[in-house]
C-alpha cells in the first residue's frame, strides 16, 4: 500500500472528486477512454453507496505495477450499517435502481476483480481491481 490516494466521501459532490482522482490515476496507468469511463462509473456506484447508506467513508486508489501486469485498485471503506445479506445484493435485479444494471453487480461487471467484506453494524469494505490489457 505504498502510493495510496484517498478521497473522503461526505457530500454528494465528493463523488465527483473521487471520479476525478480515479480517472487521473487510471490515465497514468495507461487506461484508454473506454476503460476510464468504466472505472469512473464503478467509482460513482461505490461512492454513492457510501454517501447514501453509510453517510461517510472513503475511496482510495492504488496504481498497481508489477513486471507482469498493470492495473488500478479501488478500495471503498466505511463504518456504516454494513450489508447483512451479501449474496442478495450481488444478485442481478436486486438493486433499488431496478433494471438499470448498475449497483454492485454492475461494478463487478465493469471491473475484473471484486471483493466485499461487510459486517452488520461495523461497516463495509469493497475492493475492486481492473487490469490493463
Amino acid at each position: 500500500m505504498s502510493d495510496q490516494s484517498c478521497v473522503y466521501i461526505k457530500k454528494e459532490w465528493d463523488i465527483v472528486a473521487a471520479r476525478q482522482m480515479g480517472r487521473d490515476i487510471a490515465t497514468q496507468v495507461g487506461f484508454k477512454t473506454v476503460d476510464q469511463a468504466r472505472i469512473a462509473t464503478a467509482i460513482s456506484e461505490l461512492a454513492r453507496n457510501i454517501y447514501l447508506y453509510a453517510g461517510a467513508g472513503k475511496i482510495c486508489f492504488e496504481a498497481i505495477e508489477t513486471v507482469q501486469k498493470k492495473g488500478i485498485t479501488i478500495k471503498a471503506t466505511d463504518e456504516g450499517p454494513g450489508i447483512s445479506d451479501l449474496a442478495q445484493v450481488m444478485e442481478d435485479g436486486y438493486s433499488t435502481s431496478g433494471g438499470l444494471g448498475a449497483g454492485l453487480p454492475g461494478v463487478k461487471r465493469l471491473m475484473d476483480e471484486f471483493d466485499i467484506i461487510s459486517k452488520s453494524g461495523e461497516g463495509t469494505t469493497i475492493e475492486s481491481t481492473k487490469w490493463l490489457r
Partner: protein
Amino acid sequence: MNTLKLDLENYRDLLDEYIRTKDERALYQAEQFSKQSMQQNISPEEIINVHLRSLQELYPELPDYILDSFDFLMETMMSYGLAYQEFQALREKQLELKSEIAVAANMQKTLLSTVKPEMEGVDIGALSVPARQMNGDYHHFVVDDEGSLGVAVADVIGKGVPAALCMSMIKYAMDSFPELRMDPKYILGSLNRVVERNVDSNMFITMMYCMYNTESSTLTYASAGHEPGFYYHKEKDEFEEISAPGLVLGVSADAMYEQYERKMDKGDMLVLLTDGVTECRKGDDFIEQEEILEVIREYKHLSSQEIVESVYKYFERLQDFQLRDDFTLIVLKRDV
C-alpha cells in the same frame, strides 16, 4: 452479402463509404453490425469508441471539441450497456428457471397421475389441463374392494407452483386412507384435518367427492366448497346443478360434511368440473352456465372421453388458446 466483423477497419471503411455515397447498403451493414455487437456483448461505449477512432483516421484534422464530445457521449451511454448486460444475465436465469419448472411439472404429472378405471356399466371421461406449467387442479379415481368407484375433483385457490405443491399433499393423504371406508363425507372430513394441520391458512382447497356403486347404481357425493357439477337426466333430457353444502378444506379443523345420494338411471350422466371451466372467458365476460350446458349437450351422444375432449377444444378456442385457469372436466355416464 457477407457478414462483417465489428472491427475498426471494417467500421471505418463503411462509415467512409456512407459519408461519401449516402448509400442505403452501408446503412444496412450498420444494422448488421448492431445485431452482431449485441450478440457478442459489445457495449455501446465500445461502439462509440470505434466510431471516434474511425473518424480520427478518416479526418485527422478534426477539431478537439468534436473529439471531446465523444467522451461525453460515451459517459452518457454507460448505463445502457450495463442495463443490457444485466438483462442478458436475467434472461439466462429465466431460461434456467423455466427448464427447472418444466422438470418439476413433469415430476408432478408422474406423482399425481391417476389411472382412469375401465369398468362395466360406467363410461368415464377425464381431462385436466394446466393453465401454466404446473397444475393446481387434481382428480383421482379409485375402485374399492366392493367394486365402487370413487372420484375426487379438487382445486387449489391459486395457480402455479404453490398450488401444485399443495396438491401433492392431498394425493398422498388420499392414498393413505384405508380402502374400506370410502364414504364421501368421511373422506372430506379426514382430508380437511390434514389440510388444516399442514397447509398455510391462506391456501384453500375445494373438493367434490363422488362414489358410484355399480351394483346398486347409486351415486353418493359430498362437497367441500367446490364448484357445483351437473347431473343429466336422460329421461327428462334436462341438466340439474348438483352441489352439497360444506366448508372449503383447511378452514376449520372440525368441519363436517354431508353426503347426498341419488340413483343413476341408464344414460344419465354426471359432470364434475373446476372453476377453470365455468370461469372461461369470452373477451372480458365470463361465459354463462347455459353455454357450458349447451356445449355438453351438443356432444352428449359421444363417449365420455370424447365429450370431455370436445368440450375442452371448444373452450380452448373460445379463449384464443390461452387458458386463464387450470381446466378439469370429468364425465361419468351410466351405460347399462
